[in-house]
């Protein structure tokens, strides 16, 4: 039995080598296909990670903790009181031990009006901790005038450039913010413009005002409260673990079960679907690519079977069963796919590694400000390696090799031996 397997394997190997040129051609089709796939996948993963990272920075982090009703009402009534804010912050501190947390930020956000002496416009007012927020959103880096908020600020405001234009605001201008306070009455707060930012996203530039959270709390009559505690992770891949970790800590810790923990997928479904649509496009591309590769393998193995009918006839005349004859062909297909697969993944990884070292600058392609889901996207993409992706690609190759070899194998087992052995064929 072993002796037979050995000689069948030897025949497969020698036949593959004998048709070196055709084997090499087929193999290179697979190698290039796989290399493209591995590379495209790494770049795609890198781009997605960037979308997510940019998206969640201006949004509510990879994971956010808020009061149960807030997601649907967005109302100040559904806020975290100081005890729950403290519990949420403790949970984040505890999480750092097991999950790579970049930073976290406590926000108190309300909808209201911003009024200058000339006019007023609807705005979103975010009460933020100046230091933490700068690290979180990087909105400070989008400053076009003045400065970002500082921890010692009290009546300072950081406003979008569009809003400043429409309200005729300049650095030092006075601005009145109006919103419904915790008590139900309308509350007003006077602030001064200290800085102006421009993100390139109309919604943000025309409608966002940031003020220190302490000022917001006093204004709205909500001491120690927050509408969200947002957590930024090193990678979106950690989201699930962070979510579980926070839920576990909040569930068992300080009795603060009035805290809902949400992932960026829930908070920004449009970001999630953008990634999903892009992924789908990728898989569609992959299917087409592999269909082509499968046809190449099928063609190569089938041609080699049809050209070698005489040999298969000989094998059967010498005492091989049809199954064993088929095994020789099948072995050739799998060998071809296997070798190509190994080479393809290696080449793909090498290319990705080069890109990873240098980054892939797509600014020429996209121009400067691409925005997605309220986020500005950095045009330099850093590919991401994920071992699972390599396994995925290698798996595809094996499947392709097997599928593409099945038909030629069948053809080989159905050869008319006497016909194949004819002298004058």
């Amino acid at each position, binding site marked *: 039995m072993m*002796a*037979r397997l050995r*000689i069948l394997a030897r*025949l497969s190997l*020698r*036949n593959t*080598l*004998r048709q070196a040129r055709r084997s090499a051609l087929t193999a290179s089709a697979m190698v290039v296909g796989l290399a493209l796939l591995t590379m495209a996948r790494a770049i795609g993963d890198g781009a997605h990670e960037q979308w997510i990272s940019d998206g969640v920075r201006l949004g509510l982090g990879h994971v956010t903790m808020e009061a149960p009703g807030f997601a649907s009402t967005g109302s100040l009534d559904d806020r975290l009181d100081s005890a729950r804010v403290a519990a949420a912050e403790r949970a984040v501190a505890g999480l750092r031990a097991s999950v790579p947390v970049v930073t976290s930020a406590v926000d108190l956000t309300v909808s209201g009006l911003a009024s200058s002496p000339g006019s007023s416009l609807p705005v979103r007012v975010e009460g933020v901790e100046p230091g933490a927020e700068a690290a979180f959103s990087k909105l400070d880096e989008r400053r076009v005038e003045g400065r970002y908020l500082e921890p010692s600020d009290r009546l300072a405001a950081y406003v979008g450039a569009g809003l400043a234009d429409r309200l005729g605001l300049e650095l030092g201008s006075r601005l009145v913010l109006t919103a419904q306070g915790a008590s139900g009455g309308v509350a007003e707060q006077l602030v001064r413009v200290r800085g102006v930012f421009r993100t390139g996203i109309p919604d943000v530039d025309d409608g966002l005002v940031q003020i220190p959270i302490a000022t917001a709390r006093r204004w709205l009559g909500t001491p120690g409260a927050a509408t969200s505690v947002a957590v930024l992770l090193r990678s979106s891949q950690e989201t699930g673990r962070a979510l579980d970790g926070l839920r576990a800590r909040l569930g068992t810790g300080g009795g603060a079960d009035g805290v809902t923990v949400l992932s960026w997928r829930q908070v920004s479904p449009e970001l999630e679907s953008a990634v999903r649509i892009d992924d789908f496009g990728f898989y569609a591309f992959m299917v087409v690519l592999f269909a082509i590769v499968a046809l190449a393998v099928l063609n190569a193995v089938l041609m080699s079977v049809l050209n070698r009918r*005489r*040999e298969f*006839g*000989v*094998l*059967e*005349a*010498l*005492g*091989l*069963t*049809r199954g*064993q004859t088929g095994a020789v062909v099948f072995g050739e297909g799998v060998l071809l796919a296997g070798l190509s697969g190994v080479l393809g993944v290696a080449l793909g990884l090498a290319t990705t590694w080069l890109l990873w070292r240098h980054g892939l600058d797509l600014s020429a392609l996209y121009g400067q400000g691409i925005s997605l889901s309220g986020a500005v996207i950095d045009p330099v993409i850093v590919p991401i390696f994920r071992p699972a992706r390599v396994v995925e690609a290698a798996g595809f190759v094996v499947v392709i090799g097997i599928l593409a070899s099945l038909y030629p194998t069948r053809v080989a087992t159905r050869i008319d*031996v*006497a016909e194949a*052995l*004819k*002298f004058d*064929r």
Partner: protein
Amino acid sequence: MRGSDTHVTDPTAGDRTTPGPSATAVRTEGLWKIYEQEPAPVEAVRDLSMEVRAGDFVAMAGPSGSGKTTLLNLLGGLTAPTRGRVWVAGRDLTELSGRELARLRLEHIGFVFQAYNLLPVLSAMENAEFTLLLRGLPTAERRERVRTLFREIGLDGLEDRRPGRLSGGQQQRVAVARAVVGEPALILADEPTANLDSATGDALLGVMERLNHERGVTFIFSTHDPRVMERAHRLVHLVDGRIESDVRPSGRGSTA
């Protein structure tokens, strides 16, 4: 006759029983092979019944197209008959499964084809030892058997060459070596000397005769060559798929 004193028993060679004087190696009964084709079907073998005794040395002669190759293929189970039956070593080939047929061919039958049909990716040695390898014989024994045979038929030193680098005569000798090295009970050879010069043809015939004489191997071969016919113990003439004459030239290999 099989010389039982010199016979080396091959434990993997299947149930080869020592044949008595009248043991039957091959038998056919009402054998037909009709190729369906346009414009009219071809009757390559027509109602052919014959019996070949074990240890016989039979030549089949006949014009081209008379059905020699088809008959040999039927006897080796490479083609299924349209009608009728074939027995080899007492077994009805038409009732064997593909697997059983393969086993019978491996252990019991050797083929020599007119077109050599060596495996191009294997060396002369590997081609010749192929069936021994399939039967699981140890390397040393395989090599020894093939070397001895190669020396005898002038293939010395060509062991490592692939068929592409051998002459037609050398390829045919490798093919004969492949068929005989396992000492099957029955060897079917289709015009084994047709593509050889007369000296080489004589040498090959000598090997076949010796195996027949010393080991009792049954040979059935087709030929056009009058000198080959002369050396046969029994001469069957085929015309249009039928036996026209079947003679046993006096004094040669009589087993009766």
